[in-house]
């Protein structure tokens, strides 16, 4: 993200925060709102949120950093969440994991240099009966093969 978008980002943060601040336990819904809109929670959103909820910046930062799902850097155009749990392991998940990392040329929590794909580990997508599984953005895929992943990657790259 460039500096020129920061103002509009701050407006998004302020809008969402003020709209949601009055509900009980508002912090997680606010963080979800921001991440849904911007793709991540920019570090400079922290003071705005802290102010609105009468929390310290450390409190807000502490919550953001506790949860795996919240990210503080912009994601790639698409995020691939790869399931690492036992059922997927029993159906070749470890080999698939190696293949995915090799094809993307990145490790977990990284984004491909062309900015198309971010890779995140997940511990179970509830798709254990169709292992191995992964999720692309909000779409779950089951019984994923190495070839299946390559086809998916091609689609993602072409759409980028």
């Amino acid at each position: 993200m460039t500096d020129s978008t920061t103002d509009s980002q701050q407006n998004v943060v302020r809008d969402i925060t003020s709209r949601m601040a009055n509900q009980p336990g508002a912090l997680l819904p606010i963080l979800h709102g921001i991440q849904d809109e911007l793709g991540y929670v920019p570090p400079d959103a922290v003071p705005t949120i802290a102010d609105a909820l009468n929390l310290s910046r450390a409190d807000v930062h502490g919550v953001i950093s506790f949860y795996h799902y919240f990210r503080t850097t912009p994601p790639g155009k698409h995020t691939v969440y790869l399931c690492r749990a036992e059922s997927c392991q029993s159906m070749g998940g470890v080999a698939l994991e190696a293949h995915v990392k090799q094809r993307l040329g990145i490790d977990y929590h990284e984004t491909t240099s062309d900015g198309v794909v971010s890779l995140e580990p997940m511990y179970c997508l509830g798709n254990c009966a169709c292992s191995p599984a992964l999720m692309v953005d909000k779409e779950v895929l089951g019984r994923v093969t190495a070839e299946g992943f390559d086809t998916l990657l091609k689609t993602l790259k072409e759409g980028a």
Partner: protein
Amino acid sequence: MATVYVPRDSSAVSLGAERVAEAIRREAAQRGVELKLVRNGSRGLYWAEPMVEVSTVAGRVAYGPVQPQDVPGLFDAGFLEGKSHALSLGATEEILYLKNQERLTNARVGITDPVSLEDYLSHDGYRGLKNALAMQPADIVKEVTDSGLRGRGGAAFPTGIKWNTVLNAPSDQKYIVCNADEGDSGTFSDRMIMEGDPFVLIEGMTIAGLAVGATQGYIYLRVEYPNALTILNEAIAAAYRAGYLGQSLCGSGKSFDLEVRVGAGAYVCGEETALLESLEGKRGLVRFKPPLPAIVGLFGKPTIVNNVISLASVPIILDKGGTHYRDFGMGRSRGTLPIQLAGNIKRPGLIEKAFGVTLREILYDYGGGSASGRPIRAVQVGGPLGAFLPESQFDTPLDYEAFAALWAVLGHGGIVAFDDTVDMARMARYAMEFCAAESCGKCTPCRIGSTRGVEVMDRIIANREHDKNLLLLRDLCDTMLGGSLCALGGMTPYPVLSALNHFPEDFGAAKPEAA
């Protein structure tokens, strides 16, 4: 006009159900055939998904697994009249995998349109609530107590006793919290209920509210289930519109409000006190107990925290009576358990059975053995904190006490099968790694122990100072078992030690009899 069913369940969609539904729409339009397409939940026969059903005069018939390219052929074969095709599975209710189940909690899953209140009502929905509205709170609690229902999230605490504590805790405000943070790997029955029959959960929570005098409910849903979120919100909106939620339930003057809150990928938030912290907008740190959440729960108020399946089992108990439910099962495990069969298995899926069915029956009679065709070497029951069981224990009945006697747990009813290519030392290492990634960090045995556990396992796998490290592993597990604040650190030794005890050869250790 024919009615065709194509599931909108996540797993069915993950195998192409969306494209199949689209292909059926397109093919019907091209052929000028009128049909009604219903997006139902999944019957749980995942080996046959995407499974397409058609209503015929003789009942529903099934075809599967269907891919988009099969659709023209299905039309040619006359599937709209239930005629035969290479993918025919026959009458749905006669498929043995389904026929031999005892579906109480999942009675409607896969049958109805999950967001159609009309469907829900015409399939015995909201009969439990109707009864509850005419009862005194204490009598509702008694019915649940009499049913013998125990928490299906894994801890198996008697639900009625928990409810009774909240009922008797005086407060101006109480809460019903549904734990829908189904983080245990190998489990998906909560997701299936939420995607396949969300009204049964909404009804169960409403009844819980009436039973203890709570007017606000929250469903804490994991972020990994976006499809369940959409479906739950559609169903909640429909329930509000029809007066089944809100200020005056069915005109009774009693109120209950319900909202879904989304987690953020922390496994530990499936622990009830960490979940409450998270709902309050904090880090998901486990709380000390006592006080119990039933006394000091959400925002400091008395709170029922129950798993999805526990709450979704309440409507049928209030409809047919606690005794009806209790008549299923064995020993102190009453009613039914939605068993989730996954991993390296030929026919994975959801099998709701009365307690007492054996692992072997589930793995072979239902599951058909391993998917790879190799021998099943181990199964992990009860999620990532559950023990691994070897073949010699496959005749164990699914019963809380029978599992406890083997130093194993039923947990949330997930079974993950592994064939003989599994390396159990790697699985033990993974259990420690998982605990290290997910520990909330509050207590030392879990926070530090899991990291040390990974290191010890690495040394064992590398065969460095082997005996000394095995001893250290057992000692570490003992500390985690006895010293952790919650089940995350406290039960990680279950998969680790069961792997070591039953499969010592994978750890390069001597067989137990030689030790």
